[in-house]
């Protein structure tokens, strides 16, 4: 895995010290809140409903064991014993004290972590496939390119005051697990006609109050040219993106307003001026970064492990966990193990200090000290020997971390909502808890199959409701919470924005409404169809009818 060089280390320590001084000046009254606010936001510090919130970066969702262990320590030392993993593959702490945050940042710096690029109008942390470097279906590990994007974007002097925040996501697999089509820039690795590996460049996607699926601005850009091309896109956005209206300032609005052809013309024009400059990265440098993410020292194994098969046959609970949470690995004899942070009735994405420390220990023991955070708010141990899966599962189970529900109806993406967030208009966590309790029966979850429910507590859509097969948006109606349902959204390579089914539901009605949709699907599905497939075949009307009848 990538380790900081001296430059990275110095940069993070200097930033930490700068912020310590800024906090001291704020507390002593030398600077006002108005002056301090943009500074704290550049360091991941928000003021939420009950307290400050610190958002810590997990660049491209990759953590070492010692880093996750430190995140657990920080939860205990500076917070109330837990943290919340987010749809941006980051972690948030809900209760830090402003005067202690500089110490927390220093403790993070000790394990090469920070809160840079987690807020403010900059290029945010790049996200990617949580199975990078492990997935059987990937072309190449996307993380060397993510790290190069990280180095290009961190404190980029030209792009520190963009019109609005800017998000880049990368997938190295045709099966998009990073939702690249709903980011400002999505990069999809693929081969061109000459057999070279490069990227399709998709721009102008996004969720929030104005959701769009991104459009392709270039079918193929070679690896050497990727960074100058990204620079050209950012220059076009920085120059032409709107600064007159916060709600129209995202890149997606520009792409929508002037059209993809005009964006393409502007980007190509800019790129032609800079493509042979210093941002052209040669093969040797790329190779250097690929080396940093070299696979761990896998043993040479056969893919069949008799002991693993025997355990599965003997233990139904273990077999169920393997069925949903274990994914094929590229290396024979190994598997990818997903650690669900969605226990039935629990808070999606929350993990306690001791759970973080345990997963860190287990990753040392079973997965080369490598842990991933997923945008669906779970954790992953990416390189586990099949022969070790049963022991791993048993230890996870003891810590309530072995819920066998990955991709099922109870594996819900959910933002913090009005229980924590100052922007929220309704609560989202209690709904996710009640839905997961309603569908807690595992046989029923198996019967329903893959179903992605995503819940946001306001129009900003941190819970990705627009791309949920079933999306739920919490709103405020005359001081009461109510919930709007969207159907047909999809975050995958077949990305689509869901459509609003109709009038919203009260908090008391909404779980029944979701169940009626599922019951309808079970009644009309054809063999092998997931909920989203059935929806695509039959359209909105049959589902609308069960929700509203003659209403």
């Amino acid at each position, binding site marked *: 895995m990538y380790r900081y060089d001296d430059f990275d280390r110095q940069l993070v320590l200097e930033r930490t010290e700068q912020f310590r001084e800024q906090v001291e000046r704020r507390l002593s009254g030398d600077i006002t809140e108005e002056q301090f606010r943009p500074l704290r936001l550049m360091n991941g510090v928000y003021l939420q409903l009950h307290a400050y919130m610190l958002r810590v970066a997990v660049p491209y969702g990759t953590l070492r064991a010692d880093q996750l262990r430190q995140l657990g320590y920080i939860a205990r030392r500076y917070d109330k014993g837990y943290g919340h993993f987010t749809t941006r593959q980051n972690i948030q702490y809900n209760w830090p004290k402003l005067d202690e945050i500089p110490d927390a940042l220093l403790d993070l710096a000790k394990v090469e972590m920070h809160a840079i690029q987690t807020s403010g109008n900059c290029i945010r942390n790049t996200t990617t496939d949580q199975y990078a470097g492990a997935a059987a279906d990937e072309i190449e590990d996307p993380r060397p390119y993510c790290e190069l994007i990280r180095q290009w974007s961190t404190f980029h002097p030209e792009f520190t005051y963009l019109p609005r925040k800017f998000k880049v996501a990368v997938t190295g697999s045709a099966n998009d697990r990073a939702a690249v089509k709903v980011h400002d820039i999505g990069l999809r690795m693929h081969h061109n006609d000459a057999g070279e590996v490069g990227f399709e460049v998709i721009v102008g996607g996004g969720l929030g109050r104005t959701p769009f699926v991104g459009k392709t601005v270039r079918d193929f850009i070679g690896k050497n040219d990727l960074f100058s091309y990204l620079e050209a896109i950012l220059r076009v956005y920085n120059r032409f993106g709107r600064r007159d209206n916060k709600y129209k300032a995202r890149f997606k609005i520009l792409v929508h307003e002037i059209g993809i052809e005009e964006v393409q013309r502007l980007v190509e024009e800019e790129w032609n001026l800079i493509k042979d400059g210093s941002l052209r990265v040669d093969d040797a440098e790329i190779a250097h970064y690929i080396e940093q993410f070299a696979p761990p020292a896998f043993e040479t194994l056969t893919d069949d492990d008799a002991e693993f098969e025997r355990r599965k046959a003997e233990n139904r609970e273990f077999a169920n966990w393997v069925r949903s949470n274990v994914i094929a690995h590229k290396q024979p004899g190994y598997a990818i193990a997903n650690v669900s942070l969605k226990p039935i009735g629990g808070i999606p994405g929350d993990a306690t200090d001791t759970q973080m420390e345990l997963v860190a220990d287990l990753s040392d023991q079973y997965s080369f000290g490598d842990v991933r955070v997923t945008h669906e708010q779970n954790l992953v141990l990416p390189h586990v020997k099949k022969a070790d899966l049963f022991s791993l599962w048993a230890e996870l189970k003891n810590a309530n971390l072995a819920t066998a529900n990955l991709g099922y109806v109870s594996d819900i993406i959910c933002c913090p909502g009005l*229980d924590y967030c100052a922007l929220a208009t309704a609560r989202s966590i209690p709904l996710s*808890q009640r839905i997961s309790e309603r569908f807690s029966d595992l046989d029923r979850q198996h019967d329903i199959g893959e179903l992605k429910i995503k819940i946001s507590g306001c129009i900003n859509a941190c819970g990705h409701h627009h791309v949920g097969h079933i999306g739920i948006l919490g709103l405020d109606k005359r001081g009461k*919470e109510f919930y709007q349902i969207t159907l047909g959204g999809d975050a995958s390579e077949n990305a689509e924005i869901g459509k609003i089914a109709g009038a919203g539901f009260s908090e008391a009605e909404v779980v029944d409404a979701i169940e009626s949709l599922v019951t309808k699907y079970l009644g009309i599905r054809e063999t092998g169809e997931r909920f989203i497939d059935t929806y695509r075949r039959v359209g909105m009307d049959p589902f609308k009818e069960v929700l509203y009848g003659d209403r």
Partner: protein
Amino acid sequence: MSLQVVTANRLDDGLVVFLTADGGWSENIDQARVADGKEAGNALLAEASVPELDIIIVGPYLIEVEQQDGGLVPTKYREILRTKGPSVRQDLGYQAG
């Protein structure tokens, strides 16, 4: 016109506080000074917004409240959550006691 109190977050620890009768800030809404009517509300907010308080609190604003069982309860759900803590973690926030 309804009853109002001023709330904010405390600068150093970020916790929710309410402007009290003696010009201080309390974690307990029942100790808040109540303004009755628009004019009184604006006067209360003006008092809470003086520059000198910038090193004590952040973002003061008015909320509507009702008298209930001898205490003050906000009329909006959002503000009720702020007086208690997360509804999904009743072991945390002021509700934890």
